[in-house]
């Protein structure tokens, strides 16, 4: 095996992404679900930066897209945590399997 290549980074990213998927599917706590989503965002960012390093190193476009991803993830986290706090104020609990009051 000669050194670390693109596939190694992509495999790491896939593993982290799938751990995030598992957490998102199984966590009961809304903040836990959000943390799993942050893990998935980071996995995708690793993919973008790895492609920028190995496939298009002259034009580092992947890094630009990764910056946009980070910005959008920050915005998402802010609004989602505000929603979580609001739900907690109204329902005294943020278990996602009990937040079904929008279901008819």
């Amino acid at each position, binding site marked *: 095996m000669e050194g670390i290549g693109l596939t190694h980074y992509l495999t790491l990213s896939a593993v982290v992404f799938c751990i995030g998927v598992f957490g998102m599917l199984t966590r009961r706590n809304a903040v836990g679900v959000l943390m799993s989503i942050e893990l998935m965002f980071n996995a995708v960012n690793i993919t973008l930066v790895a492609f920028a390093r190995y496939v298009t190193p*002259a034009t580092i476009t992947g*890094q630009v897209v990764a910056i946009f991803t980070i910005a959008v993830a920050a915005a998402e986290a802010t609004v989602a945590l505000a929603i979580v706090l609001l739900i907690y104020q109204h329902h005294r609990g943020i278990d996602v399997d009990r937040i079904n009051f929008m279901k008819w």
Partner: protein
Amino acid sequence: MDTISLAFYALAFLIIAAAIFVVTSKNIFHSAIYLILALFGVAGIYVLLQAPFLAAAQVLIYVGAVSMLMIFAIMLTARIADQTIRHTNEQVPTGLLVSLGLLAVIVYSLWQTPFAISSDPMPEGAGGTLGKLLLTQFALPFEIVSVLLLGALIGAVVIAKKDSVRREPEAPMTPLPKSAEKVAG
């Protein structure tokens, strides 16, 4: 095994172990701490990939801001750090199946795909190149992202405000209500 490989495997082990603890830890606060660890590891991976600006941004935004938000949310929603309540739903076998299946599909297709590896050198001073790209080729997305961040800021304030529903639309320029003064002071 050279230094880069060693650093990669150490960081990968750190990230994966921390990520597993994030999704399985019984105490949600421990999850947040492990999330910070995993995000630090990802910053190290960015350094290995010769993206120093992104590593710095990762530490500033994720480790500094996003995880602080998470910890704030955990602290403000009391009782959820309680270890006695169930922390997973009944989807654990299904979730395990889905995520492992997804992992198998992704990894299989990864090792089958021939990627067009380029051996061009990275530009000198990647941070400067990044800034130029952001203000020339990606100027429009850059501006849109700034509007998005402004919207998220205002949206978060409006959503999290206590009496966001009952506030009367009229009554312009009256003195602040007592509660708001107390918060401001």
